[in-house]
C-alpha cells in the first residue's frame, strides 16, 4: 500500500466515526461508554511515582531506566491483536497514539468523535495483573494507579470516569481500596479483572462485598484472554484463544457468584459482566438452570433459578455479535432484559471496538431502548448526572443512517 493516498488521504482514524455520529444525530441524547481503555504504559512514568511499596517502586523505577518497565512488573500476554498490522489506530508513524489518558484534552476529543459523553476508562496491560504471583506487587500497583487516576486525571475532567482496579489477590487490600476511594470524584465503581484463580465466593471476600454494596457502586468483572491457560494452549490461532478466552473466566466467576448465592447475601450489590458480547449469557442461563433443577442441594442459598439472578446483572454490549439472522440477537436481548440491563461499551481503542451505531442501528430495538442501552442505563447505574447540554430534554428520533450497518 502506498502511503500517498492523495490530498484526501490524511484524515484521522476516527473521521468516519465522527461523520457517522453526525448522520445519526447521536448528539440528541446522552451516550455513556461503560468500557473504554487507555494504554497505561504511555503514562507509566507518572503512575510509578505513586507506588508506595519501597521494593516494588525501585523495581518499577529501575525497569523504566531500561525502557522495559512493563515487563518487570506487569504480566504480559502472547497474541497479535492487530492481525499482523492489518488493524490500525494510526495511519502514519507520525500520527499520535490513541488512548493516552494523561493527555486529557486529546482523550476527550477521541471520545467526542465516537459520539460519547462519558467514558468509563480502564487500563490495558493491568488486565493481566491478577496473574502476578506476588500479591504485594498487585496491591502496590493498584494503589498507585488509583492515586494517579484520582489525583491527576479524574479531578481534571467532567467526562472521564473509572471503575477502580481491585487487587483481588489480597482481600484486605481490596477492602481498603473500597473504603479509601469511594466518593472520590470520578470513581463510579470497582473492577475485578477476571483473569485470576481465586474463588470469588470464598469467605475471605465477604467484607469486601459488603463494603462495595454499602458504597452503592457497581462491581464489575472484566476478562482478558490467556494463551497460557492449559485448555487454551491447544489453540494455535489467536481467533480461538480470544473467542473462548474472554467468556471463559467470566463464566467461571459468574457461576460461583450465583451458585454460592452472593446476590442473596448482598441483594443491593450490582454486578457488571464485561466484554464478552451477549451470546454466552443464554448458554449459561440454560445450562445452570438445567443443572440446578437436578442438584438444588448444591446451591442451598438460592431462592430462585440461576437465570433469574443473571437477569438482574448488568452486561456490557461489546463486542456485539454479528449473526446472520438478527432475530436470534433480538431473542437474546429479550432474554437478558437488555433494555434495562445492557450497557453500551466501545472498548476503544482495542482491536474489536464497537461504535454506538452497533446499538443504534439494531432494527428490533425501540428508540427508547436504544437510548437506554446507549446511555440511560449507565447514567443510573453509575449515578452520573445528565450532561448539561441535554438538560432541556431530548429531541425525538429522526430517520438517520447511511446504510452500511447491519441490515438483514
Amino acid at each position, binding site marked *: 500500500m502506498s502511503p500517498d493516498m492523495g490530498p484526501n488521504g490524511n484524515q484521522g482514524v476516527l*473521521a*468516519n466515526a465522527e461523520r457517522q455520529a453526525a448522520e445519526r444525530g447521536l448528539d440528541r441524547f446522552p451516550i455513556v461508554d461503560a468500557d473504554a481503555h487507555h494504554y497505561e504504559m504511555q503514562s507509566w512514568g507518572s503512575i510509578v511515582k505513586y507506588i508506595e511499596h519501597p521494593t516494588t517502586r525501585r523495581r518499577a523505577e529501575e525497569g523504566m531506566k531500561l525502557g522495559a518497565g512493563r515487563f518487570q512488573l506487569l504480566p504480559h500476554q502472547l497474541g497479535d491483536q492487530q492481525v499482523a498490522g492489518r488493524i490500525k489506530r494510526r495511519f502514519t508513524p507520525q500520527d499520535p497514539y490513541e488512548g493516552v489518558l494523561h493527555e486529557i484534552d486529546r482523550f476527550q476529543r477521541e471520545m467526542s468523535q465516537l459520539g460519547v459523553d462519558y467514558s468509563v476508562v480502564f487500563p490495558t496491560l493491568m488486565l493481566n495483573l491478577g496473574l502476578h504471583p506476588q500479591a504485594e506487587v498487585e496491591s502496590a500497583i493498584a494503589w498507585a494507579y488509583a492515586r494517579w487516576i484520582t489525583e491527576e486525571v479524574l479531578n481534571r475532567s467532567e467526562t472521564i470516569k473509572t471503575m477502580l482496579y481491585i487487587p483481588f489477590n489480597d482481600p484486605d487490600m481490596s477492602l481498603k481500596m473500597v473504603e479509601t476511594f469511594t466518593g472520590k470524584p470520578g470513581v463510579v465503581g470497582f473492577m475485578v479483572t477476571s483473569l485470576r484463580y481465586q474463588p470469588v465466593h470464598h469467605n475471605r471476600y465477604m467484607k469486601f462485598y459488603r463494603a462495595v454494596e454499602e458504597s452503592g457502586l457497581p462491581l464489575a468483572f472484566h476478562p482478558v484472554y490467556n494463551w497460557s491457560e492449559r485448555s487454551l494452549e491447544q489453540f494455535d490461532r489467536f481467533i480461538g484463544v480470544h473467542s473462548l478466552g474472554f467468556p471463559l473466566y467470566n463464566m467461571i466467576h459468574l457461576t460461583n457468584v450465583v451458585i454460592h448465592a452472593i446476590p442473596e447475601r448482598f441483594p443491593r450489590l450490582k454486578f457488571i459482566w464485561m466484554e464478552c458480547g451477549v451470546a454466552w449469557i443464554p448458554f449459561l442461563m440454560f445450562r445452570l438452570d438445567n443443572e440446578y433443577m437436578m442438584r438444588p442441594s448444591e446451591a442451598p442459598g438460592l431462592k430462585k433459578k440461576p437465570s433469574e439472578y443473571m437477569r438482574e446483572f448488568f452486561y456490557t454490549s461489546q463486542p456485539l455479535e454479528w449473526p446472520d439472522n438478527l432475530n436470534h440477537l433480538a431473542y437474546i436481548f429479550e432474554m437478558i432484559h437488555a433494555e434495562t440491563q445492557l450497557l453500551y461499551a466501545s472498548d476503544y481503542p482495542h482491536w474489536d471496538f464497537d461504535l454506538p451505531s452497533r446499538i443504534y442501528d439494531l432494527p428490533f430495538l425501540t428508540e427508547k431502548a436504544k437510548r437506554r442501552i446507549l446511555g440511560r442505563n449507565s447514567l443510573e447505574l453509575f449515578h452520573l448526572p445528565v450532561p448539561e447540554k441535554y438538560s432541556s430534554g431530548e429531541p425525538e428520533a429522526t430517520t438517520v443512517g447511511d446504510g452500511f*450497518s447491519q441490515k438483514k
Partner: protein
Amino acid sequence: MDYLVCKEGELRERSCRLVQAGDVQIGVFRVKGKLVAYANNCIHQGGPVCQGEILGKVEEVLGTDKTIISERFSENEIHLVCPWHGWEYNLETGECAADRRLRLRPYPVVLRGDEVYVKV
C-alpha cells in the same frame, strides 16, 4: 456527476487515491492493472476501509496427504483490509472475504485522456 481523481500515471498497482465526491468519500484503486472504486465505508461498522492494507489473501499450502506445509500470500486474490477491525474484501470485486454475500459499494471509474474520474 464525474469527479477528477488524479492522473492515471499517479495510480500505481495496488495503490489508492481518496477523493471526496459530494457527500461520499471514495477510494480508487489499481489492481491487476484494472481501476476500481469503492465507498470508503466498511460494511461492518463504517470504517475507512479504503485506507487499509492491501495484501494477498492468506492461503494454506497443503501437501498431497492434506497436511499443512506452509502459508503464503496469494498473487491471484488481492485483499483490502479495513483498518478498524480487519474485515477483508476482494479488491477486484468488493466482495467480503468472510461472507461473499456482502460487498463494498462500488462506483464506476472512467478514463479521459490521462485523467481518472469516478462517477457518482
